[in-house]
Structure formats: C-alpha cells, structure tokens
C-alpha cells in the first residue's frame, strides 16, 4: 500500500513542530515515505497521487489537554475547520483538504491526526506531553497501516 505521511508545521514555534517531528520519526525508524510541509494548506494536494494512502499530522489548539490526539477520517467526510488548526499561512490544513475534495483530488484514503499543542510562540520548545503524543501518533500510523 503506497503510504505517504505528511507532517505539517513550523519548527520555530514550539509544539507547532509536532507534525514535522512525526514525519521525521516515521522516516528515520521505519523508512516510511514522509514529507514535511511548511506551506499553506492549498498546496497539500501537490504531495499525493490518486492511489496514495495519506496520513496528515498537524498541531491544533482546541483547548484540550496538551498532547491530546484527535483523528479525522477525511475519506469519510469533511475535516472540521473550526477545531483550532494552527496556520501562519491561511488557508490551513482543513481548507486545503476540502478544496482537494471539491476538485476531485482526494487520494485513495486520507486520515488526519491532530495533536493538541500548548506552547506555539516563536522560540518555544516542544512540551513533553506533545513529544509523547508524536510517538503515540507515529505508532498508531504504523499500526493502522501494517
């Protein structure tokens, strides 16, 4: 199965790096095809091909406890845009994925993991609960695609 992990985020804003860290982790440990996406959500669809099984990982700020993991099946239905996805480049992940849906450009399957962030100011460090959630998401991706 052509698995593609897309880690979305910003290395310079603490927990907003969560998606990037998950992509790096999966690439390093298990040779998973994983890309790091630091641009606007509309260009997400440039990464995948129609047959790909895609997992997108991004940070969000919804008010839950730091490190809380959310999972959305974008193949089944729309990804909610109002749960606090972090984007310094509007439009963000949800808008990018929904635009791809409208254009008929969704891949074979598309799952989105959101990791609740705590510190996202420039220069912040990744909080331990978020680092642990990155591991949890990486394992879950391996598990569900095994």
């Amino acid at each position, binding site marked *: 199965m052509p698995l593609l992990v897309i880690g979305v985020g910003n290395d310079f804003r603490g927990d907003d790096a969560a998606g990037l860290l998950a992509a790096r982790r999966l690439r390093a440990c298990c040779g998973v095809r994983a890309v790091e996406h*630091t*641009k*606007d959500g*509309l*260009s997400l*669809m*440039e990464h995948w091909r129609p047959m790909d099984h895609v997992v997108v990982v991004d940070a969000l700020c919804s008010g839950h406890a730091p490190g809380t993991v959310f999972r959305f099946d974008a193949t089944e239905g729309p990804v909610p845009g109002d749960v606090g996805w972090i984007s*310094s*480049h*509007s*439009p963000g992940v949800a*808008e990018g994925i*929904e*635009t791809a849906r*409208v*254009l*008929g*450009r969704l891949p074979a399957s598309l799952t989105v993991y959101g990791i609740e962030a705590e510190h996202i100011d420039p220069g912040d460090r990744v909080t331990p609960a978020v680092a642990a959630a990155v591991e949890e998401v990486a394992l879950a991706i391996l598990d569900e695609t095994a």
Partner: protein
Amino acid sequence: MSKVRTITVNALARVEGEGGLKVRVRAGKVQEVRLDIYEPPRFFEAFLKGRALGEAPDLTARICGICPVAYQMSSVHAMEAACGADPGPRVRALRRLLYCGEWIESHVLHAAMLHAPDFLGYESALHMAKDHPEAVTLSLRLKKAGNEIVTAVGGREIHPVNVRVGGFWRAPSPSELAPLVPKLETARGEAVALLKWASGFTFPDLDLHHELVSLRHPSEYPLNEGRIVSSEGLDIAASEWEQHFEEEHVRRSNALHARRKGGGIIQTGPLARYTLNYDRLPAAIQAAAKEAGLGRECRNPFKSILVRCVETLWAIDEALSILRAYEPPEPSFVEVVPREAVGAAATEAPRGLLFHRYRIGGDGLIKEARIVPPTAQNLRAIEADLRGFVQNHLDIAEDRLTLLCEQVVRNHDPCISCATHFLKLKIDRD
C-alpha cells in the same frame, strides 16, 4: 437610522498578517479611516545590529514567508553596494530567475486565491473552487511552477538557503534547471488563461492619483535594479531614497507609514510598476494586457488583479529566457571584502519597492540597518482609497459596503507581517 455609522472588520481575512480596519461616517461625510495594525512590532532592524553582513540575507528573509526572496535580494545588493562588489552577469541572471519564481508564486496566490473570490462573491478560494474548479486547479499548478523555480535555485520553497552576499552558495547545473523549461512553457498557457478569466470580472470604478513610485531600468521591466522614479517626475538613485521619503510612527499602528517628504501619498507595487514602465514590457506582454482591457496606465486599484496576472506572464517569459541561456556562474560567488561603508539598494518585491540600507564597520559587522517594506509605503494610499471609496458609496448597504472595504484593502495585497516589521474592518456611520 442613527446619526453614526460604523463599519468594523475586526480581523481582515485573506491578507498576510494581522490587522483591523475602522471607518467612521458622520452626517454623510467620512470622518476617519483607521488601519489598525496590531501584529506586534518585530524589531528586525535592531537585532541586525552587531550581526555579520553575510547574515543579512537569511535573517531578513524571515520577515516574510511569501516574499523572502525580495528581502534576500535587497539585502545582498545593499551589502555589495557597501563593499564595492560586483558578482557579474551570471549571478545577476540566476538572481533574476529566483526572483521571477517568487513573483509567479506570490502573484498567483494573491490574484487567484485571495483576490478573485472578492470579484465573484465567495468567502474563500475553497468556496470558489466548487463553481470554478478549472480556474482553481490551473492556478494551483501555476503557483507550483513558481515554487519549483524557487526550490531549484534557492534550495527550498520557503526561506531559500542558497543566496549569499556575493552570489550563491552553489550554482545549480544546467541539467538541474532544464526540467523547469517544459513546466514553464505549460505555465505560460495557464497564465494566459488566468488573465483571460480575471479580465471577465466586474471592476468597481475608482481612479486614484497617488504618486506612483517604482524602479525603472534603462531597458528592462523593473525587478532587481534601476533608479527610483515617480509619476510626479522624481528620478533618483536608490541610495537617495531617504532624502526624498520619510517614515512616521502613527499611534494606531505597529507599522510605520511612509510618505514623500512634504506630505504626499505614495503608492508602490504592480500599478506603479506597470504605469511607469509600460514601455519596458515586451510587445507580446503589452498585447496580452490590451486584450485583457488594460491601457498604457492603470490607476484603478481593483484592476491590480489584472496587472498581477500580466506580471505573472512577464515573469514566466523572463524566467524562460534566462533558463534557455543559462550558464552557471563559476565560481558561484565573489568574495566580498568588508569595509567601513554605507550601502543601500531597492528591488521590486511582488508588493512593490523594498528599500534596504546598512552601515557596515571595517570588522564586517552591521552597525545600523534600515528596512522599508512596500506595505509601509502603501498604508497611506490604502487609507486614502478607503476614504474615497466609502465617501462615494455611502448608499450601499452595510454588509456589502463592509465587504467592498475589505476588497479595497486587498487590492493592495498588503503584507502586514512585513509592514510590522495587517486586518479587521469597522465602519462607523450615521
């Protein structure tokens, strides 16, 4: 109806950065237009002090995620002017290619994804995509072509890492750049289609006469060098910018407002470049502009979307011409020997003139830095446009007027993140 009408947009969408807008109308007269910029100040000029001159391109690139190349270009040109270095024609050509990539990427993002929904009445590109899938798909491909130039020359899409004072860390080989040619040939057709699509929009009437300011080159459409000229006859070297323009702090704004000394409102960006340099556009681009309904001048900011599309087409042709003649600079950079000096440069960022000046010590460290982004130069023009537009359209219903006011701001493709180095709207009327 009450005596006072207030139009408020607390956070302007589809602009880069954070700001708000308030218009106050009393007894049928626009009393106040306020562009509140609350994105925090960023102090780049202060923390550049004491850094090595070679760090300027990478540090200043961080001012903007949309136009980092512009910051890199103005900074390297200023440093080379200070130190008396000339990297030669091959480095010049490669820099222009990189800059064309940024123009394509930035212009298509704004024209198709941020500005076009205004004309067609959609909340966002996503909403527009349902009814205009072909245009959105085509624009995404076109934008990608720009990204690919930046990646190939600059090393990555955002905040490229290959630019240095004196040239490039590594010059890409001809075989590395060759795949760009067929992609840009396809992109050219897409840019023509985008211009045709935008030329079918309805443009509100607004004819403004701010002093237009842009670079002007003896033979080329302005990009990375030239004299600074204006529609009022100004013609100065880039290093003379501070003698003719000034910035002032405005209480409501974390961005400085620039103006012509003596008080005149200035405007930089696509309309200024086009109107002041129409004669520098190749015949094929002039013909495309004419077909889209543009004359030799364009002073209606709503039509800036057309000029951006024309400039995208120009940038694709320029990039193709550079690529077809490409020979890598060898070595890829010239050594720049620091000396105690002041160097200034201006280049044309997608949003307009970007001025940098540095004072360098004999130790190669930056003693003083001055950066004037295009949005800071356009803030007064944006406020004046709003004042004029609201005054002439007071009969329009609140919701519609608020939307149009936002559009008046977006006409300028403001980059608030750059200017604080902006948006929310409030119209207060009776």
